[in-house]
């Protein structure tokens, strides 16, 4: 015999309601929370595009097959991936579905009086009874009022309740999490983030072309950049003489907040950025820029200026490329720079200290096609020498020059460069307020005890009892104080 189970037919609304109830249930929220923790893990183990794009491209080179699969599942962009977003969006919907109804309920409860004194107090916790001496109800009322209990009075009894702050705190905590997320969203939509490398002596004008990299939020526009300028006056780095570890970075700048404003001299440090309204400017990285002049055979200057070099180690051995596209033929200097020169038998020129004690520029000169005109983006630190040939190899100290077959190279001087990160995040104050409210709400909800105390006088007998609505201890002590007060000692 085959019994066919007939599922009750669910209308569309009933179905939606069913899923809504499932989604907003505590168990689902718990599963989503654990899933969120689990989903965050791969992003800390696999290199991420947002944090370290170089490591991602290295990973593609070393583990090509695996990397392709990682890419398919957005494992290089975990925190903006569809599956990670799905989890936290569901979690927040579940949270809203849970918190909103509870907020209305609580708003209602917060204005209401406690429920009536139960008929049989003897069945409640901490029940005590003794014979009345007359005015206990009055004493009880004063005591409970002084302790800020809410009191429902009746002819022969008081019903008092305290600790609504627990639920208030709990709700505020959860609502503040939504506020944090809103702050993150506003930052993502209206924020601007970019960076620029500037050598000492250069000036930064805040428009999109001045940046080396810049990314706008979905809604922010170039016109929203505040029109400030920053001139790099001086950068000072101090290093530990034993370990070469950096001890202090100080950047001196002259800023003009908007055209026509008075210039201001300011100091930037790693932990104290410049502020222009909601835009802040951070000191992120630094290195050295050799100042090089290249002249052709007739003595015309074909290139001059500071060129930022990329540091390779803690002693700031740096690599860089000096490209001279205006010469005929085109020239390229594949270079490295060491602030304190030393020779190592297996590595060649190395630096033994990050400060400029014995600076040296080492380079090879190449002649041919730099490949700048074919539209393929190039690294500013490297030269593609596949269509070039090497014509000279040398090293210079500041002030020295080299004559070679196509002209002269002069190593004039060396100045530091700094990488400024320029960030506008109009959402961060919402997140900050959210964070502060979250902690206050959490404290209120974890350390407030919700409890009820009753007293009744019936036939010359005093009856008292209490109820702790959450298992936190402390009611017994409070009750004994209460009873002692009533008994007049």
């Amino acid at each position, binding site marked *: 015999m085959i019994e066919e189970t007939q599922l009750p037919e669910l209308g569309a609304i009933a179905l939606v309601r069913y899923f809504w109830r499932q989604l907003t249930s505590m168990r689902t929220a718990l599963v989503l929370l654990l899933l969120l923790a689990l989903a*965050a893990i791969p992003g800390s183990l696999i290199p991420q595009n947002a944090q370290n794009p170089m490591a991602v491209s290295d990973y593609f080179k070393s583990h090509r097959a695996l990397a392709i699969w990682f890419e398919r599942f957005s494992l290089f962009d975990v925190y903006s991936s569809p599956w990670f977003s799905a989890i936290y969006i569901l979690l927040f919907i579940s949270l809203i579905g849970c918190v909103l109804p509870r907020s209305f309920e609580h708003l209602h409860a917060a204005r209401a009086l406690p429920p009536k004194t139960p008929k049989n107090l003897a069945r409640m916790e901490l029940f005590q009874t003794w014979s009345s001496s007359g005015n206990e109800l009055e004493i009880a009322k004063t005591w409970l009022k002084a302790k800020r209990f809410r009191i429902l009075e009746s002819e022969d009894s008081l019903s008092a309740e305290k600790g609504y702050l627990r639920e208030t705190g709990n709700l505020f905590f959860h609502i503040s999490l939504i506020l944090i997320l809103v702050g993150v969203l506003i930052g993502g939509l209206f924020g601007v983030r970019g960076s620029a490398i500037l050598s000492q002596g250069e000036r930064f004008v805040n428009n999109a072309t001045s940046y080396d990299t810049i990314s706008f939020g979905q809604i922010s526009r170039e016109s929203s950049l505040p029109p400030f300028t920053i001139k790099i006056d001086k950068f000072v780095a101090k290093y530990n003489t034993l370990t070469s570890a950096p001890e202090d970075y100080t950047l001196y700048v002259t800023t003009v907040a908007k055209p026509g404003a008075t210039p201001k001299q300011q100091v930037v440090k*790693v932990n104290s*950025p410049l502020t222009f309204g909601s835009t802040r400017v951070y000191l992120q990285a630094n290195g050295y820029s050799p100042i090089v002049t290249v002249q052709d055979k007739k003595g015309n200057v074909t290139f001059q200026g500071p060129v930022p070099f990329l540091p390779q180690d803690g002693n700031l051995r740096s690599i860089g490329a000096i490209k001279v596209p205006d010469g005929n033929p085109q020239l390229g200097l594949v270079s490295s720079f060491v602030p304190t020169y030393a020779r190592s038998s297996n590595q060649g020129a190395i630096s033994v200290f990050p400060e400029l004690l014995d600076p040296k520029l080492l380079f090879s000169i190449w002649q041919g096609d730099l490949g700048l005109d074919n539209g393929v983006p190039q690294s500013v630190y490297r030269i593609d020498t596949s269509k070039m040939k090497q014509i000279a190899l040398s090293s210079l100290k500041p002030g020295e020059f080299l004559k070679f077959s196509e002209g002269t190279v002069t190593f004039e001087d060396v100045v530091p460069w700094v990488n400024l990160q320029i960030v506008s995040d109009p959402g961060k104050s919402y997140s900050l307020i959210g964070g502060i409210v979250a902690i206050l709400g959490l404290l209120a909800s974890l350390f407030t005890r919700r409890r009820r105390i009753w007293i009744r006088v019936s036939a010359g007998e005093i009856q008292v009892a209490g109820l702790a609505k959450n298992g936190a201890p402390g009611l017994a002590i409070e009750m004994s104080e209460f009873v002692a007060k009533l008994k007049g000692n």
Partner: protein
Amino acid sequence: MSAQDWAYLSNYAIYSAMALFTLAFFGHAYETAWAVRTPLASAETEGNLVAKTFDNSRTQKAMRIATAMMILGFAFLFFGVIARGISAGRVPWGNMYEFSITGALAFTGAYLFALRKYDLRWLGVLVSFSVLLTLGTAITLLYRASAPLVPALKSTWLVIHVSAAIISGGVFLLANVIAAAYLYLDNMESKGPRKVWAQRLPSLEVLDQLSYRLVAFVFPLWTFAVIAGAIWAESAWGRYWGWDPKETWAFITWVAYAAYLHARVTVGWRGRRAAWLCLLAGSTFLFNYVYVNVWGTGKHTYSGL
């Protein structure tokens, strides 16, 4: 005194603290082992299983000495951490060696603080052993000469963020040890009555409550540590949250403990399941400390390794 003198003094204090914790360990081991009494063999007991009894009246003295050693060790360790700070002219939280000695201090502190209210001396063996292990690893593998801070750490937030994180860590680990004890005893009880030496340990219910209270007590502080870190990151790195490995794992720990609190308070988990969840959350904290500091990449690379 010169910075060098303070650094030496700090090292001597740490070595002395290790000696004291070793004494505390032996004291606790003695009082646990010798409290189990086997009656002398007699005609009555012959042929029967010998019924062991638990009686720590004779080992009270060892227990008190062990606790005294623990307090003294705490004092020496405290001095060692302070002296380290003086020698470097800053708060002593600049590299992993310093995080470890301060972490051991916070852990011992959490134990001694809880001792005022609960008789946790049965935990003494485990506490002294794990403190010894932490200090031993710190001084042999993680030790770095006392040096000034790198520029990124020069901020008031170092004091606020790191102290909050270290204290939270100490309490989380204590909660973890208690949850582990719960699981061990629960397993033992499911096979029969408790072994004699374990009879002095509190009931399962008490352990269950205790680990929950510790977590509930310190969860707001951990939340604060994460938020303080975000505020600091905003002023140092230009963003308050960037999914740096350390940040990611701090977030995972936070979410895991949030799940634990919800499971207990709202869904009503107790006992084994809650203890496992507590252990899981605590191990994410440990993983963050060990993995991200030693092997991890990202911006929180201050271990000095």
